[in-house]
């Protein structure tokens, strides 16, 4: 085993572990780009995980499970949208409430699904052609979940939409200055609702990935804090879908290495490495005076006729 296998394994695992993080982060980026912080990612993910498992097990089709996760994630996000956009409530608290509520509800409803093995997990795929590329082919295009490929593709599409299309301009202007956007004739409330719900849909899929692919079974609390990593990655990626891919690969790779390197380093320090590294990268970016501006109206409810 040479250095190639280290690179291949690390990248492979980074992507596999990172897939739910990527979906969740892409969704959160859109919500926050429209000016709405949603700390309910963990709650939406866990509700998605339960619904995906229950539906996939009942129907025998994991894709219907993923679809159910998307719908449930979207509905959960709708609650947040209602509170934060319509009622203009504090977004941080509304999101926290969603996380607490989702963890509780999923545990309550999920008891009968504990200890069951999923009949038909989501299949894996190899991309012909691309998988032949030396090293990178094995790492990125062989035997990954469909959701991994879709997630990577989605990152590119979402980047394009955000920066190169009218929709993207609308979303960003709503997040930067809702009053200006309003004056331009953009329906601020609609854009925010759609972005928050879209974020919930992706978070739901992220949870569904966990229960029908990554570890095809249901256990309560199985998201185990991933939703919080998503929140951090969103900021880390500077609200940019492509940088999100980089952040996810970095975080996932470090997470994998924490187990590869245990033979040589104290395990506790390896386990805190991804978290310390996140701060370090931001600090270095700060040293180099890289500007990473948050959407200006992030976290602020919009009230028509007020500045």
């Amino acid at each position, binding site marked *: 085993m040479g250095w190639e296998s280290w690179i291949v394994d690390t990248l492979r695992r980074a992507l596999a572990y990172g897939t739910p993080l990527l979906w969740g982060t892409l969704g959160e980026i859109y919500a926050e780009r429209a000016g709405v912080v949603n700390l309910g990612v963990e*709650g939406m993910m866990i509700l998605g995980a339960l619904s995906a498992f229950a539906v996939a097990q009942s129907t025998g089709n994991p894709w219907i499970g993923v679809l159910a996760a998307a719908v449930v994630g979207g509905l959960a996000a709708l*609650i947040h949208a209602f*509170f934060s956009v319509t*009622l*203009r*409530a*504090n977004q*941080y*608290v*509304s999101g*926290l*409430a*969603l996380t*607490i*509520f*989702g*963890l*509780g*509800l*999923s*545990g*309550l409803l999920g*008891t009968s699904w504990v200890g069951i093995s999923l009949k038909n997990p989501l299949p894996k795929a190899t991309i012909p052609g691309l998988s032949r590329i030396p090293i990178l082919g094995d790492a990125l295009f062989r035997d990954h979940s469909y959701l991994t490929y879709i997630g990577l593709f989605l990152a590119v599409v979402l980047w394009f939409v955000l920066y190169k299309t009218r929709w993207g301009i609308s979303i960003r202007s709503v997040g930067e200055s809702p009053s200006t956007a309003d004056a331009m004739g953009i329906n601020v409330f609609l854009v925010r609702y759609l972005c928050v719900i879209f974020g919930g849909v992706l978070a739901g899929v992220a949870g569904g990935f966990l229960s029908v692919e990554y570890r095809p079974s249901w256990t*309560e609390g199985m998201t185990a804090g991933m939703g*919080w990593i998503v*929140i*951090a990655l969103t*900021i*880390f990626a500077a609200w940019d879908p492509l940088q999100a891919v980089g952040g996810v690969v970095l975080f996932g790779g470090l997470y994998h290495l924490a187990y590869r390197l245990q033979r040589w380093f*104290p395990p*506790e*320090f390896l*386990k*805190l490495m991804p*978290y*310390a590294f*996140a*701060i370090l990268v*931001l*600090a270095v*970016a*700060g*040293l180099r005076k890289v500007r*990473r501006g*948050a959407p200006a109206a992030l976290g602020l409810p919009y*009230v*028509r*006729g*007020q500045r």
Partner: protein
Amino acid sequence: MKRLGPFVFERRLAPTRAAILGYSLLAILAALIVMSFIFWAYGVSPIKAYSVIGRTTLGSRFGLMEILRRAIPLLLCGVGLVIAFRAKFWNIGAEGQLLAGAVAATWVALFSGVSGPMKLPLMFVLGFAAGAVWGIIPALLKVKLQVNDVISTLMMNYIMAYFVKWLIYGPWRGPTMRGFAYTDLFPRDAWLPLIRHSKVHWPTLVIGIAAAVLAALILSRTRLGYEIRVVGDSPDAAHYAGISFLGVSLWVMLLSGGLAGLAGVGEVAGIHHRLLEPDHVSLGYGYTAIIVAWLARGSPLAAIITSLLFGLIFAAGDEIKVTLQMPFQITGVFNGLILFFLIGVEVFLYWKIRVVRGGKETEWAGKAGS
């Protein structure tokens, strides 16, 4: 002003205290009503459920003490977060700062060689210092290197948790603990005194209330308080007024982290008497305190009330598990509902809503001059 169908929303600038209290109670009542359907669906009579919860928490000495015990760390962390949030510093890291305080207290208790009456005060002093250091780092990172405060404080929670694990699995593992990951028990001179027949470590409670009063004085009566408020309300104005953003951030996080550190001292010296797994040292008090602080709406004194409210919710959660034999997740559902309703009534606090029929709308528009 905004019109939605027949409803007209008017901005209310400062809600009165009575309105805040009234609407908050209304929200809790609404949450209880929704919750009663869940009890009912679970086969438990809601009337029985609430009478049991009421009797065993507010209705008994034991229950009241349990509420107080849970309120102590929430109060200390909550007051600190109120200060931080006033300066718009998003400190999500009270949990890690609390653990830092617990680590420092453990060092004093077991490894410093100090003993006697000065030991407990020293534990509090160093606990405060450790929490403050853990709080100042994100402040420096934010001001000097533009590192986002949410991310740095959140990540530092994880880092401190793994540091605690390293200590208890490694150098600090107690020889009398048969290899399990706990430090040895603290000697008795490092135990906080308790209110009789309870687990309420009253010195920490006293410190918490004193901190709330002091914080209120600092915010309203001192130059620092003024600067904190200006930085929080308008960073631009602060800049023109020559207020040092660095100085304010450092002070705010020193106080915020330090108070959370004190909460950590209280938990290890008052409850556990040893250092153990981070999830057991604190039951997410640092995170719950975010809500405690938000509900206090910028007032350290109000944090006394809101921390008691969440102390009550923690205690009620235990009762739901023990007396009603319901799954523990029900407390999560319950807490989530209460929060949703509490923020839901915000709209009534900051907005006056009136029903308008037909063409009278313009009249109202004319009045809403502000």
